[in-house]
């Protein structure tokens, strides 16, 4: 690898690296001030919470790369949670089949978003806003009151720690990255997504199959959100159709994507950055507990941190030499 090549790669991943460093700094602060410090239970709990948001943030990254947005990820996440609390039960075989069905339905939800956007030619933001309502309605139908259960063996295996103290969720996250994100990013479809995000007309003129790319992108987003929902069920051991959970995950996923360095205008970024963005966001929330802050001030503290984090993007203004570059 030549020096310029390395330089180029560093530049490309600058934002993701910054998010990783941010997370490392916050997490170090968290561990240093935690009563129990660097122990397996603390790490496992932190990972379980972080990975849930990280996977939903990955789901959000894909449409954002294509200059779209998926405001229904949180609701697909909740729908998968409710479905899993019905289906992932019984014998090991039944539970595995059930998990497969949950993921398939998540992908189907994403596909429906894609179909409406591509063939209905509606804007992603309003489409997913409306389909999100539909998915929430379906979750309510499945779980009018919180409840249900999940295959205990599966849940324990996924939320516990492997021998050696590595949280199992971390392995799940790694597997999702290797099985979904890496092949996608390296495929023609992944490249086409970035091309569409950079410039739709240019991508169209270059013969990119826009319809297929968008369909795959939103389907994968649905699938990832459903994986998150399945994992949520493993953590909570129950299903709950909560509009609040869906809303919080949708909004935090957007924040994580932005902190992870993916441009909301599309065309640049990566799901890896979003993962670290999600971890950083989650750890900030936990920081409040180790510092024993008055609970009353917690929402304000979190809001200010969130606002500051997303405003960091304004630093690029310092480098703008032609004022016209400010305006798109």
């Amino acid at each position, binding site marked *: 690898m030549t020096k310029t090549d390395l330089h180029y790669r560093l530049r490309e991943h600058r934002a993701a690296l910054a998010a990783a460093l941010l997370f490392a700094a916050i997490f170090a602060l968290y561990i240093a001030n935690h009563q129990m410090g660097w122990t397996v239970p603390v790490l496992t709990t932190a990972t379980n919470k972080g990975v849930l948001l990280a996977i939903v943030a990955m789901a959000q990254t894909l449409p954002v790369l294509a200059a779209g947005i998926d405001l229904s990820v949180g609701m697909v996440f909740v729908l998968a949670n409710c479905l899993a609390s019905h289906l992932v039960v019984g014998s090991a075989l039944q539970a595995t089949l059930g998990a497969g069905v949950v993921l398939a339905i998540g992908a189907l939800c994403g596909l429906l978003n894609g179909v409406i956007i591509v063939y209905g030619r*509606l804007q992603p933001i*309003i489409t997913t806003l409306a389909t999100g309502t539909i998915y929430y309605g379906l979750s309510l*139908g499945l779980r009018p009151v919180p409840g249900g259960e999940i295959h205990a063996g599966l849940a324990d295996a996924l939320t516990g720690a492997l021998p050696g103290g590595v949280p199992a969720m971390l392995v799940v996250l790694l597997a999702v990255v290797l099985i979904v994100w890496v092949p996608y990013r390296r495929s023609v479809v992944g490249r086409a997504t970035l091309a569409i995000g950079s410039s739709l007309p240019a991508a169209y003129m270059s013969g990119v199959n826009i319809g297929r790319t968008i369909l795959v992108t939103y389907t994968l987003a649905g699938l990832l959100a459903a994986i998150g929902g399945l994992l949520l069920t493993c953590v909570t051991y129950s299903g709950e159709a909560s509009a609040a959970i869906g809303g919080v995950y949708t909004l935090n996923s957007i924040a994580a994507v932005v902190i992870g360095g993916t441009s909301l205008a599309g065309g640049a970024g990566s799901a890896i950055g979003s993962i670290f963005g999600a971890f950083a966001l989650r750890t900030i929330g936990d920081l409040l507990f180790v510092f024993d802050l008055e609970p009353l001030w917690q929402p304000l503290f979190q809001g*200010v941190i969130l*606002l500051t984090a997303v405003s960091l993007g*304004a630093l690029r203004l310092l480098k703008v030499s032609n004022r016209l570059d400010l305006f798109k």
Partner: protein
Amino acid sequence: MTALALRLKRSGQLPVLAAAACTFALLMVGSLYSKNFLSADYLLLQLQIASFLGVVATGAMLVILLGGIDLSVPWLVTVGGVMSAAAAGWWGDTGALIAIPFGILCGAAFGLVNGIGVAYLRVPSMIFTLGINAVAQGLIVVQTGGFAPQDRSTPTMHLIATGRSLLGIPNALLVWAVIGGLTLFLLHRTTLGRAIYAVGNRERAAYLSGVDTRRVTLLCFVIAGACSAAAGVLLTGYSTKAYQAMGDAYLLPAIAAVVLGGTNILGGRGSYLGTVVGVLLITLLQSILSVMQIPEMGRQVIYGVVIIAMLLVYGRGRRHSD
């Protein structure tokens, strides 16, 4: 006939007409279910309830016309309600006098921060207003001590939100009419209005034509914040009490109303008349679904399906090849 259809299409009023037709159809469907749907009482009550959404949608529309989006609606509505009630609680009689302007001013202040972030720091509006929403929530939690605020609305607020002073027309509707009239004037008779459409179409071109696009953006967000807070004040008067998360139910309906009324979600195109029709449509839809006693699940699904279906009829974008 085709000539008429073509002219309609070119005038850009097609979505407004389609939404109006749907509203009418909804009323007809409702009247099959119960005769009450066509009574003056029911319609006036719906108009009164629609006024709250209408005021929120006015601010949301201005921001959407710019090509942005304001996700801080939920907690700015709450800010308006809680702060106006608190002003009356803190300062006694003078407080009651300035409660309404104070609440609206607080919302406008948050709108100002929104505007600074979006216009001058160039942070995408979707994410910056999200942050402001979180900060507003935090401040309200601290201010109310984490409890539901005990401050009640002032008699004036109650009168404005629920009274019917003039010929039996709800006062809230009059408030919406005044705000609507001002918005129409702003959009079509002032340079600021022209500039809003220009920025929404292409900010760069507007900037090169000498428009101070950042100030235009700032002003729109201030107005949007004030509108959200004003709706909060009305709501507080309506329910005689400010409570946390009172604005949660207004974000999605407001955006849906604006878009169903034919305003382009990417900005630059749209009429206020469309937003009015969109607001009426959403309000009627919600009302009919609840009167029919469809369970919450069915309501959510039907709500989403109707929005998608209507947009598929008249809100579709252009083909890539065009």
